[in-house]
């Protein structure tokens, strides 16, 4: 049986299996169709109906269940997540797993299209060491990402010493809904 205890290892292995079968485009189709539109359709329904409140409900539930080290912040027109200990990437790092070349892309791969469908857009950075941050605003909102500490205070992952520490390699997204929209570090 394939279980959920080590699901993230299964997930990572599956990305690479799909890449070998049909290239990166198949991996992106998988994130959109299987994860966004099928597996995580409850997230889509919540956020479509409740907007920012739905984000707080969804990520509060799912990150608690996954045992994440995280903090969420909300202000007028923006919902922010600071992840200081990603349970998913952390599992791979602790177990020496890494079949797919960029596991962290999967979040933008399903969350990006899901938020686009519900009328939202993302500023996001991850450092491939289990830390990331997200700021979600309405598609029409051109506000740039916040300065470190202004929305999340001391919980802002960008203020933590390991954010840019050894091994960190940041991928940066601005006003994006797609996993391939990286604008560099």
């Amino acid at each position, binding site marked *: 049986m394939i279980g*959920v*205890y080590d699901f993230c290892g299964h997930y990572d292995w*599956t990305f690479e299996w799909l890449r070998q079968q049909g290239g990166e485009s198949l991996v992106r189709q998988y994130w959109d169709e299987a994860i966004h539109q099928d597996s995580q359709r*409850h997230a889509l329904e919540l956020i479509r109906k409740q907007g920012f409140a739905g984000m707080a409900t969804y990520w509060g539930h799912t990150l608690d269940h996954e045992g994440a080290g995280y903090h969420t912040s909300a202000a007028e027109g923006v919902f922010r997540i600071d992840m200081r200990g990603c349970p998913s990437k952390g599992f791979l790092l602790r177990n020496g797993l890494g079949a797919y070349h960029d596991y962290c892309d999967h979040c933008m791969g399903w969350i990006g299209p899901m938020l686009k469908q519900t009328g939202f857009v993302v500023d996001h950075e991850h450092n491939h060491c289990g830390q990331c941050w997200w700021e979600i605003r309405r598609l029409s909102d051109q506000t740039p990402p916040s300065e470190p500490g202004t929305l999340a205070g001391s919980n802002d992952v960008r203020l933590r010493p390991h954010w840019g520490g050894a091994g960190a390699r940041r991928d940066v997204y601005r006003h994006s809904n797609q996993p391939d929209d990286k604008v560099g570090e």
Partner: protein
Amino acid sequence: MSVQDSPCVLPYTDSKKTGAGDFYFAINATFRFIEKRFGRDGLRRYWQEFGSTYYAPVTAAWKRGGLPAVASYWRAFFDAEPGAEVRVDVTSDRVILDVQVCPAIKHLRAHARDIVPCFCQHCYYVSEAAAASAGLAVRVEGGNGACRQAFLPRHSALLPQDLAQIKEAA
């Protein structure tokens, strides 16, 4: 026995005691996606390749430890699956998993998810692939929420798995 008491039995370990049940949604959706793209044979190939590569450390442990290692693995495995009710018995010639409540089917049903009809076949294909290089085989009977799985030495007189003995999930 808890996961914390047997950290070396599972090949990949986590800081939390049990997995998040919502990941069963993703497992089910992954099977649906792959079957849609590659057909039933492609899905079976995916399961077999997963069983023989990702679970290679399990195969190695079973090869070293034989049936007691198989039993230890499955006890630790189901301890870490939320909602599982499974009895694991080991005899001189086999290990029997009596799955009274399959955690995956239970969670998918509780959340009104459409379950891929051949979902329960993955237990056979994944485990058979993992077991083969350890000189073992698995035979599955039942499914759709409860089943019986037998792990036993692979030998020439063993009848092949009859897929009709594995129920469709609904």
